[in-house]
């Protein structure tokens, strides 16, 4: 079976500071992997390397059996096949919701305006935001913005989705609506890599959990096993801290 995402021996440093040390991870088609770990452990950097928006110094990445070229420009075509959702949404503030969702569809996938809009309508209906298509991002709540950001990524028909702390910037009462959309995606069989501190989501949706610390992948375990009996002392410590809250 071809893995959807293969990451082999990924290393990266900023100057002389190593941020990722020989990280390897395979994600199967339809699998949901949650990445957790203390602040500064390299989770965001790792996720950004998967679609090549951060260049790595060593290692190989393949998406759906195709190697990610090391040159950023050459990687654009493959990058378009991976959706990405950010902590701070990163909707384009000068464009309406509809224009946000259509931009890459039109300019990268070369879809016609009508096709792009039809795609957007379908997805907006799914997340219950059809009435917001003419709104600008700043006119929406954080939870609505993040759901739009997810729709924008899904409109590209991605083979996998990357999430970097998608609920960390949200007010508590809005976290649920975003997690619900992600949970539904997971159930539908989307391949997902999710950096999150929401252990509830991990338990409900993740097939496996990756624990990172100091730029290393310390542990990869089946979800139930990870929460019941983490293999490493560092993961145990991290879990006791985070679950104490």
């Amino acid at each position, binding site marked *: 079976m071809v893995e959807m995402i293969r990451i082999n021996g990924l290393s990266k440093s900023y100057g002389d500071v190593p941020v990722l040390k020989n990280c390897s991870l395979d994600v199967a088609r339809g699998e949901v992997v949650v990445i957790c770990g203390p602040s500064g452990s390299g989770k965001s950097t790792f996720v950004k390397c998967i679609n090549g928006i951060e260049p790595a110094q060593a290692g190989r990445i393949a998406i759906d059996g195709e190697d990610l070229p090391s040159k950023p420009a050459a990687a*654009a075509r493959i990058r378009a096949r991976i959706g*990405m959702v950010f902590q701070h949404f*990163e909707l*384009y503030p*000068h464009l309406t919701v509809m224009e946000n969702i259509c*931009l890459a569809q039109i*300019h*990268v996938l070369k879809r016609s305006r009508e096709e792009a809009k039809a795609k957007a309508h379908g997805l907006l209906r799914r997340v219950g935001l059809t009435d917001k298509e003419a709104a600008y*991002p700043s*006119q929406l709540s954080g939870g609505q913005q993040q759901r739009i950001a997810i729709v924008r990524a899904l409109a590209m028909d991605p083979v996998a989705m990357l999430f970097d702390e998608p609920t960390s910037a949200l007010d508590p009462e809005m976290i649920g609506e975003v997690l619900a959309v992600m949970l539904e995606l997971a159930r539908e069989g989307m391949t997902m890599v999710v950096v999150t501190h929401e252990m509830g989501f991990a338990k409900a949706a993740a097939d496996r959990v990756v624990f990172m610390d100091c730029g290393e992948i310390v542990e990869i375990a089946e979800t139930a096993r990870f929460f019941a009996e983490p293999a490493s002392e560092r993961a145990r410590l991290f879990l006791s801290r985070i679950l104490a809250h």
Partner: protein
Amino acid sequence: MNYAWNWGVLVQPPYLEWLGQGIAMTLAVSIAAGIIALSLGTLIGIFHSSTSGAMRLVTGSYINLFRNVPLLLQMFLWFFVVPELLPKAAGTWLKRELPNPEIITAIVALGLFTASRIAVQVAAGIAAVPGGQSMAARASGLSTVQAYRLVLLPQAFRIVVPPLTSEFLTIFKNSSIALTIGVYELTARTQQIQSFTYQGFEAFTAATVVYMVIALTVTTLMTVIERRVAIPGQSARV
């Protein structure tokens, strides 16, 4: 003060015509220089915001050179010195055959000078767009050029409109320096009227009023543009 006011001279031939020609020249030189400055300045600003060190060195040198040498000196250099430094044929062509060399020189000098200032504004505008925006654009598969055109520049230009207004205002004021290389723009014409009629106060007052009207028009226009492009739901930037 014993001064015999005579506003009538301003509407007498040929002085009214001179004023009109002066205004037309000031507008022509300023607008042409403004077009050069905006296009070249934007281009240099974009390259100056790039991550390539070599590129930043080139654009940084341009900016430092053109921004730090006084405009008056730049006009003289372009008009008197550059033709001598060029190969003989090119120099002769510039001096003898180029129509209205003083006007062309003034436009080029003012354009290149202002471009360096606009480049700084544009680069600052791009830098002020949050880094996550370019990341989101690239993550969706947009090329670097597309990311600039569709995501970064539209936001940067909205940020840059207020400082650009002051650059445009300055172009009109700076265009008066062109008189030093013999361009008959508004200030030169008023000087000419004063030396023919000795009614300098009237002539200079007229010029003052014209410059103020131009400034008001530019400011109003830019305010309209700023309102037009304002993003709904976002409070105006202070």
